């Protein structure tokens, strides 16, 4: 190859522009031009053969391209941030401190999570106050029932207990009834020579109430002139009426009541009368027979009783034409609808 060296010829075959003299030589020397063309062909063939042997198939290349794009343009911000961090990492102390701090916090997360899971959350406690009845006084609970029952029986007999206040008398009576109901069968009272009449009636009452005797209490069974027996009979009738939830044949018995009666028997009558009034089972005509004195004795008649309007009318009728303004206002108050 005269004129153009082998290395230069190779350079020309690879695409270098020939100098003017080289171009003249190639035009003049056909063999040289042919050698250049063969060299170009060999290089092209070599490149093609090597490329076909080493480059991936189109489908494989497409998969790889998708993977590259997924890591670059599809996540552009993240990739650029990572690149910037990687670039500044060696020279930025603050960045390294920040990364170390982040690492420490991440390492502490499992420990914090363990503590959070282990500590049970405190359950909310919702409280509210309920109204509670006061417990009974200790002395009331410890009181021996037998001695009390003796006192109560003595009182019911109509003995000398006038000094008792009305409230105390009522309490004594209620306690006596309770004890009679709860103490079981009474002893043979006749054996000790006591008042068999009053006690016998009490025993009979006790037996009738507890044994479920359904026979009615009637006024004819009450001994004439026995104020205590009359009051107890009415009281028993009230009990029966309460048990049966209806007042049957009560009015003839109520006729036996006399709130104006003196002494302990009178207290008993008034207590029974108040009880009957509280139940609403006393008719107005019956109350009218008791008169103003009897009504006055019934200081326990409470506001709100259904008989109050009738009481007002009765008071007006009893007072007649002598009603003063104060009495009028009192009657108005009784008759006012609630």
């Amino acid at each position, binding site marked *: 190859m005269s004129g153009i060296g082998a290395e230069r010829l190779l350079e020309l075959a690879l695409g270098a522009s020939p100098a003017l003299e080289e171009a003249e030589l190639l035009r003049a020397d056909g063999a040289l031009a042919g050698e250049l063309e063969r060299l170009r062909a060999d290089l092209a063939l070599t490149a093609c053969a090597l490329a076909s042997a080493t480059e*991936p198939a189109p489908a494989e290349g497409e998969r790889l391209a998708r993977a590259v794009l997924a890591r670059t343009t599809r996540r552009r911000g993240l990739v650029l941030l990572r690149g910037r961090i990687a670039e500044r990492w060696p020279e930025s102390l603050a960045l390294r401190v920040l990364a170390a701090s982040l690492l420490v916090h991440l390492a502490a997360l499992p420990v914090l999570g363990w503590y959070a899971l282990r500590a049970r959350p405190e359950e909310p406690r919702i409280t509210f106050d309920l109204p509670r009845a006061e417990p009974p006084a200790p002395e009331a609970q410890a009181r021996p029932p037998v001695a009390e029952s003796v006192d109560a029986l003595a009182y019911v007999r109509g003995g000398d207990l006038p000094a008792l206040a009305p409230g105390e008398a009522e309490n004594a009576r209620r306690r006596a009834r309770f004890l009679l109901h709860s103490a079981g069968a009474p002893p043979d009272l006749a054996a000790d020579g006591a008042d068999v009449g009053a006690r016998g009636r009490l025993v009979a009452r006790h037996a009738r109430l507890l044994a479920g005797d359904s026979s009615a209490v009637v006024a004819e069974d009450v001994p004439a002139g026995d104020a205590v027996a009359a009051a107890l009979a009415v009281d028993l009738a009230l009990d029966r009426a309460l048990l049966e939830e209806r007042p049957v044949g009560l009015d003839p018995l109520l006729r036996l009541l006399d709130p104006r009666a003196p002494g302990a028997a009178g207290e008993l009558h008034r207590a029974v009368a108040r009880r009957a009034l509280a139940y609403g089972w006393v008719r107005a005509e019956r109350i009218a027979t008791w008169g103003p004195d009897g009504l006055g004795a019934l200081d326990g008649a409470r506001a709100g009783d259904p008989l109050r309007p009738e009481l007002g009318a009765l008071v007006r009728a009893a007072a007649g034409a002598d009603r003063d303004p104060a009495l009028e206002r009192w009657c108005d108050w009784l008759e006012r609808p609630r």
Partner: protein
Amino acid sequence: MRGSWDGERDPLAALAAGDAALFEEFVRAEVGTFVGFFRRLGAGHHEAHDLAQEVFLKLFQHSRRYRPSERFPAFAFRVARNAWIDRGRRRAARGGGRVHAAGTVGEVEGLAPPRDEDEPDDELAGRARRLVRALGELSEAHRSVFELAVLQELGYQEVSALLGIPVGTVKSRMFHAVRRLRAALEGDGAQGEPA
């Protein structure tokens, strides 16, 4: 490279200006180029894929501060060449390989396409196999020059700058590499001629 990626079609310049479409086109068109580049340098199949991805990732990350100072293909192969050198260093650090310095013989692992002995040998495939074998027998220094100058069509000046060697050395290595490969081709022609 298969496409023209210079001047107004510079993918990184477009990416820096906010247009990712040209970079995506570049990736789709040239992913095989870079895989082949690494395969011919001696990388295995999967390693060549990883290295190609690494090159594209580095190019993408570099786009933020990219200032065109040379032709884009030369820049791209500089990045690829650095990735190849880093790969050699990593393997050396792990004790699993050696650094391919200029003048040493690189390994071309399974480069040739598998041959089915029962099939008649296709002319191009057979020639490719012999060329690959001849390429593998070249030193990495010669192979790199040949690769960049012939297959990637870079000029001698660009190859010189990229490899950090004088232009005369590029010419000399190129000459020897082509002579060896042509010899392989001529032997191929002699073998291929009918008896």
